[in-house]
C-alpha cells in the first residue's frame, strides 16, 4: 500500500468516525411516517407543497442526527406520501392502506371534505373495545374547517384557528379604523371551508367586534361570471368586503369589483387565499387585501423552513408549513414517549404517539409557540398580511 492510498484510507476512516459522532451513521432504524394530500386535480399545488415540506423537514432532521428512540437507538424518518385527490373516498382508502402498513403516524389530509369523513372511520374513544374503528393517529396539517378533531380521539390538528384569527383581525380593524361600520360577505357556497368560515367565523366575529353585517352574496367554486354578485355587493355599500373564497373565484370577484368600480374601504380575504395563487391570478386587484395567516417568513426558523422546502420544489405557505411543523412535533413526541420503531411494535408505537400528542399543551411552531387545546386542536400564532405590490407583506402582528 503506497503512501497515497494509506492517506486516503486514513482520511476516509477519520471522516466515518466524525460523521458517526454526529449521529448520521447511527440511524439504524426507520421511523415511517405517511403523508397524504391532494396531488391530483385542482388542489395539486397543496399536495405538492405539503409533500415537499414533509420531505424537507424529514431531511433536515435526519441530517442533524435523526430521532432518538425509546431504547436509545437513533432512527431515521422516512416519509411516504400518498395522493388522496382531495376526495373523501380516496382519502379513506389511503388511510386504510396506511393503517394496514407499518407507518406509525399519518400526516394529512389537506382538504376538509376528506378530513371529516376520514376522522369518522377512526376509533371514536381510545380503548373502546366495542369500537372497531381504525387506531391510527392522524395529525392534520391542512384541513382547516372549524372543530373537526373532536370527531375522534385519534384525530389531531395543527391548523390555524380561524375563530381566533378573524376575532383578532376584526378587533384590530375596529381599533385601527373606527370609521368603518359595516361588513358585507362574499362566499363560495359549495366549498366546505369557505362556507363554514363565512357563516361560522367571519360573520360572527365581525358582529362581535361591533360591525353591522349587511348580508352576503354567493357563488360557486367553478363560477366564471360574477357580475350579478358584485352588483349586490355594490348595492350594499359596505365599508368592509369579506371574501370567503379561494384564489380562482376570489380573483374573479376582485376583477369584477374593479370593473364595476366597487371600492370598499377594506377587503378581507380567506386564510387559504394568502398564497402565491392569488398574487399570480390578480395581484393588482387584490392590492390592499388583509388576510390572517399562520405563516409568513418573519422568523429565522420560518425562513429556513421555506428555503429547505424550496429545495424540494415546494412553496412555503400556511398549509405546507403546517406539514413541516407536524413532522417536528412528531419527532418531539417520538422522543418523549419512547417510540421503538420496530416491526413488532407498530400498534404500540401508534398508541404512544396518540397519547403523546394528546398530552401536549404547547408546541414549537415557525412563528412561535402554539397552544394545544383539550379537543386536540391548535391555537397557532398568526400575523395579518396585506397584498402589496405583488407580495404578501406583514401588516400587523397581534399580541398574544
Amino acid at each position, binding site marked *: 500500500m503506497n503512501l497515497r492510498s494509506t492517506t486516503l484510507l486514513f482520511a476516509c476512516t477519520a471522516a466515518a468516525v466524525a460523521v458517526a459522532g454526529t449521529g448520521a451513521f447511527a440511524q439504524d432504524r426507520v421511523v415511517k411516517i405517511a403523508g397524504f394530500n391532494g396531488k391530483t386535480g*385542482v388542489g*395539486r399545488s397543496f399536495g405538492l407543497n405539503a409533500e415537499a415540506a414533509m420531505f424537507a423537514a424529514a431531511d433536515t432532521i435526519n441530517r442533524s442526527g435523526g430521532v432518538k428512540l425509546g431504547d436509545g437507538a437513533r432512527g431515521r424518518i422516512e416519509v411516504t406520501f400518498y395522493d388522496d385527490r382531495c376526495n373523501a373516498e380516496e382519502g379513506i382508502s389511503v388511510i386504510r392502506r396506511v393503517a394496514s402498513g407499518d407507518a406509525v403516524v399519518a400526516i394529512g389530509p389537506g382538504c376538509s371534505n376528506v378530513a371529516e369523513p376520514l376522522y369518522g372511520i377512526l376509533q371514536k374513544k381510545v380503548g373502546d373495545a366495542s369500537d372497531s374503528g381504525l387506531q391510527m393517529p392522524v395529525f392534520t396539517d391542512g384541513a382547516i374547517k372549524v372543530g373537526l378533531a373532536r370527531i375522534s380521539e385519534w384525530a389531531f390538528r395543527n391548523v390555524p384557528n380561524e375563530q381566533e384569527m378573524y376575532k383578532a383581525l376584526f378587533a384590530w380593524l375596529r381599533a385601527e379604523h373606527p370609521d368603518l361600520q359595516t361588513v358585507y360577505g362574499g362566499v363560495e357556497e359549495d366549498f366546505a371551508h369557505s362556507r363554514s368560515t363565512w357563516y361560522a367565523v367571519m360573520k360572527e366575529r365581525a358582529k362581535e367586534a361591533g360591525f353591522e353585517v349587511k348580508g352576503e352574496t*354567493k357563488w*360557486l367554486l367553478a363560477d366564471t361570471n360574477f357580475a350579478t354578485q358584485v352588483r349586490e355587493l355594490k348595492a350594499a355599500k359596505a365599508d368592509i368586503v369579506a371574501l370567503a373564497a379561494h*384564489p380562482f373565484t376570489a380573483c374573479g370577484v376582485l376583477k369584477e369589483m374593479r370593473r364595476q368600480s366597487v371600492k370598499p374601504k377594506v377587503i378581507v380575504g380567506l386564510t387559504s387565499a394568502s398564497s402565491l*395563487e392569488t398574487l*399570480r391570478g390578480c395581484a393588482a386587484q387584490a392590492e390592499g387585501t388583509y388576510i390572517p395567516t399562520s405563516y409568513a417568513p418573519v422568523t429565522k426558523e420560518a425562513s429556513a423552513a421555506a428555503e429547505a422546502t424550496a429545495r424540494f420544489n415546494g412553496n412555503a405557505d400556511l398549509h405546507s408549513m403546517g406539514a413541516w411543523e407536524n413532522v417536528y412535533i412528531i419527532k418531539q413526541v417520538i422522543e418523549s414517549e419512547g417510540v421503538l420503531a420496530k416491526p413488532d411494535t407498530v400498534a404500540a408505537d401508534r398508541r404512544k404517539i396518540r397519547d403523546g400528542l394528546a398530552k401536549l399543551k404547547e408546541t414549537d411552531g415557525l412563528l412561535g409557540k402554539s397552544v394545544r387545546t383539550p379537543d386536540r386542536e391548535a391555537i397557532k400564532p398568526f400575523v395579518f398580511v396585506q397584498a402589496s405590490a405583488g407580495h404578501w407583506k406583514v401588516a400587523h402582528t397581534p399580541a398574544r
Partner: protein
Amino acid sequence: MWALELLQAVFDGLLFGATYAVIGIGFTLIFGVMHKINMAYAAASLAGAYAALLILQFVQAPALVVFLLAGVAGGALGLVIYLCCFRFMPLAAPLAPLMATIGMLMLIDEAIVHATEGMPLPYPALFDDVMLQLGEFTLRGDLLLVFGVSIACMGLMLALLYRTRLGLATRAVAQQPVAAQLCGVRLTRVNALTFVLTGLFGGIAGAMIGASVGTLSPLLILPVTIKGLIITVIGGLGSIPGAIVAGLLVGACENLFQFLRGVTERDIYVMLLLFVFLVFRPGGIFTPGRGRD
C-alpha cells in the same frame, strides 16, 4: 330598478352565452358529421387556450396573437383526438369512441393540472377594464369583444359549411357517408378536417372564456363540458343554428335563474330546462315538436 337589474343580468348572461354557443357548435358539428359525441371537445378547447399561453413564456405577445395561437393549438389537439379516439376505432362498436373521448377528457384535464400544478393562470384580455355606460345600464367591454369574436367564429363556420367545397363534402358525409364516398369524397380526410376546424374554433372559444374570466383554471373543464352537452341537446344534435340559439339561451337563463332564485338553485333550473326539451322537444329548438312516441 328591479326590472333594470334583471335586464342587466340577462344581458350579461347573453353575452357570456356566446362562448357556450361556440363550444356547442363544436360538439354538434362533430356529432352531425360522425354521429358520435366527442366528450373531450371542451377540454381540448381549454387546453388550446392554455397552450397559447406558452408563447408568453418567450415573448410579450399581444392578446390577439394569443387568441389565434389558441385556435391553432385547438386545431392540432382536434386532430390528435380524431386519430386517438375515432380514426382507428371499430365502426361496429359505437361506445368505443365515446369511452375513448371520456378517457381523453380525463387525460387532458390531468395533463393541464400537472403542467400548471392546478393553479389558475391569468389570461390576457382586451378591453377588460372598459365599461360602457348607458344610463344605469352597463356593458362589459371584454364581454362585447367575446360576443363579437364568437359571432364572427359562428359566421365563419357557417360560411365554411355552406359556401365551400369542404363544407359541401362535410354536409354530404353528415347526411349520407356511403353515398358521399361513392361520389369521391374522402371520408377520412373530411372527418379529420372537421375535427381540425372544430378544434380551431374551440381553441378560440377557450381563449374567449379565459379572456372573459381573466383567468384559466382546470376547474372550468367540467362545467364547460356539461354546458356544451346541454347546448347540443337543447339546440338539437347536429343543428348549428340550434347550438347558437341554445348557447345564448343557456347563458341568459343561467343569469336569469341566478337573479331570481340564487346561485344555489341556478343549475337546478338549467337542468330542468334540459329535461323539458328532452321530453317535449327531443329534436331541439329547430325541429317541429312531436309526440313522445
